[in-house]
């Protein structure tokens, strides 16, 4: 029974080593209140900024109306525009000349012109026209506004024609699946998750390891009987915990503050997020083995990781529209796959069967990065 006893005391010692080290890492984070505050506050601030300030939805845009007909039909159409949450009728114009002046003042983004025979045309020929004039100095906004305005007019038309019961008419019915209100939050919640996890895990792990190299304390750890792999893992544990808190706060905020539903399995969503967290941690380890100083570690994390994540994950710019080389590059950005997974699970509500490919890619990336990182960490000791 002696060898077994020896083994037991050996694993006991290893466990003590590990937990002493993790405790020390937690103390580092706890003592540095400012960083802790940033790490935990960042996702909250980002969700708030993206959710309420930086949105590509257009709400309450000011418009001008030139009503040359001034009858029941036109005023009810104008009332409908005004009532929609996209538009506020700011000015009632009386002539074409005033349109340009109104745009130049910069007050309005869109002008709606209703011709003088609007009601007659609608009644007798079933063909009335509305003119939309948009300020295209910001083409995206102009596009969105004309689409919204068209939709409001169509709505109105539907109701009028329904009353009349025409024998036949062609109607185009568009349904926006999964996100019927075209809410921007559906798009950026997965994006913010990818960004925050990457920033916290990758940058902080890289910095904390490089800091020990700079301070000379890493050498002490390497002279100790603690295995290098154990040092690396123990360093990652606290950031894994922090990320779990961040995942929870992002999901809670998006469900309760932004009203983005979690349509798929919550367990799957959390499991995938933890997988991505591990990928980010391995990236941090890899960076730490390449960087000689904390500044370099931070620089690599920001330039080599954060920018591609924002640009090439599909979160800001659609990947489908990118030129071929960039589309290829986007494949090695882990956030791209994570972004697809979160969108699919959270918004579309699909299961693992639909995202197994992306999951497999992330798992492959994790194994590759971790192997290289630990190998490089060991080589450095020689």
């Amino acid at each position: 029974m002696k060898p077994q006893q020896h083994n037991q005391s050996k694993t006991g010692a290893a466990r003590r080593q590990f937990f002493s080290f993790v405790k020390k890492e937690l103390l580092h984070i706890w003592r540095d209140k400012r960083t802790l505050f940033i790490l935990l506050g960042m996702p909250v601030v980002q969700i708030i900024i993206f959710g309420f300030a930086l949105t590509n939805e257009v709400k309450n845009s000011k418009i001008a109306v030139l009503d040359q007909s001034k009858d029941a039909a036109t005023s009810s159409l104008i009332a409908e525009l005004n009532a929609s949450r996209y538009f506020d009728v700011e000015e009632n114009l009386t002539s074409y000349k005033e349109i340009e002046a109104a745009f130049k003042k910069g007050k309005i983004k869109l002008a709606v012109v209703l011709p003088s025979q609007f009601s007659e045309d609608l009644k007798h020929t079933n063909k009335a026209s509305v003119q939309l004039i948009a300020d295209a100095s910001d083409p995206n906004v102009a596009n969105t506004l004309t689409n919204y305005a068209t939709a409001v007019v169509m709505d109105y038309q539907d109701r009028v024609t329904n009353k009349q019961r025409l024998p036949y008419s062609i109607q185009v019915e568009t349904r926006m699946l999964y996100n019927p209100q075209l809410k921007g939050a559906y798009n950026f919640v997965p994006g913010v998750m990818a960004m925050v996890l990457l920033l916290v895990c990758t940058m902080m792990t890289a910095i904390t390891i490089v800091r020990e190299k700079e301070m000379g304390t890493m050498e002490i750890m390497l002279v100790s009987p603690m295995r290098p792999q154990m040092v690396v893992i123990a360093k990652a544990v606290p950031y894994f915990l922090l990320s779990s808190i961040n995942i929870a706060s992002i999901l809670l905020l998006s469900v309760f503050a932004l009203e983005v539903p979690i349509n798929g399995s919550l367990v799957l969503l959390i499991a995938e997020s933890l997988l991505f967290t591990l990928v980010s941690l391995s990236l941090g380890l890899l960076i730490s083995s390449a960087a000689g100083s904390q500044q370099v570690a931070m620089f690599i994390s920001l330039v080599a990781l954060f920018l591609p994540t924002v640009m090439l994950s599909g979160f800001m710019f659609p990947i489908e529209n990118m030129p071929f080389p960039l589309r290829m590059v986007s494949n090695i950005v882990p956030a791209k796959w994570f972004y697809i997974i979160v969108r699919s699970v959270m918004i579309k509500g699909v299961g693992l069967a639909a995202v197994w490919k992306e999951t497999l890619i992330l798992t492959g990336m994790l194994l590759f990065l971790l192997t290289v990182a630990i190998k490089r960490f060991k080589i450095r000791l020689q």
Partner: protein
Amino acid sequence: MLNEKIITVDHLTKRFAAFTAVDAITFDVYKGEIFGFLGANGAGKTTAMRMLCGLSMPTSGKATVAGFDVYTQNEQIKKNIGYMSQKFSLYEDLTVKENMQLYGGIYGKSNQFIKDKTAFILEQLHLKDEANKLVGSLPLGWKQKLAFSVAIFHEPEIVFLDEPTGGVDPVTRREFWMMIYEAAANGITIFVTTHYMDEAEYCNRVSIMVDGKVEALDTPAMLKQQYQSPTMDDVFLKLARKATRSGD
């Protein structure tokens, strides 16, 4: 002094590509002695020391530390040695007590051992009132003494000190050496590198490395006699002047 060898080094060599950092050095260190390991910058001291600590694999030659082979048993070596580097090596954002708990923990010591030893060291260094203060708030001299206590916290057989007194005032250096003597008297072997030649005088035996080779090894008194020099400083200069390598 017991004549038991605790470190044996036999033609130990380390090459980095074409550069031979450590060139077939041979020496023994005896249990309980204070062994001074001297040499100009770039002479190969640090590389030799790293090999003995199990941080770096030798290219050729033999060496044992505390009876364990540096090629195959560096796990056991690590358990039996302490190390203190020229860079200050405690965590400044942890308290005195937390630092000791950490080092006790990573050497796998039991909670009881850590508790007793912590109390003992705090008593010895008169740091009881500072136990829960952050190390960063202590004066440099105290930190240095504390770092030494932490390096021998797990009661190793040998402690390697890499320029431990850099940047410390003469009074603290003296106090520091008192601690080294005390540790040696308790049977811990001291392997120390230094640039201060007055400290070399405190050592039982001194080796001087020049260009990767051990050029001289004896007691300070014998070395002074051999090189007909009044001080160790003079001995060192006579030897170091022969160096062809430039320092780093």
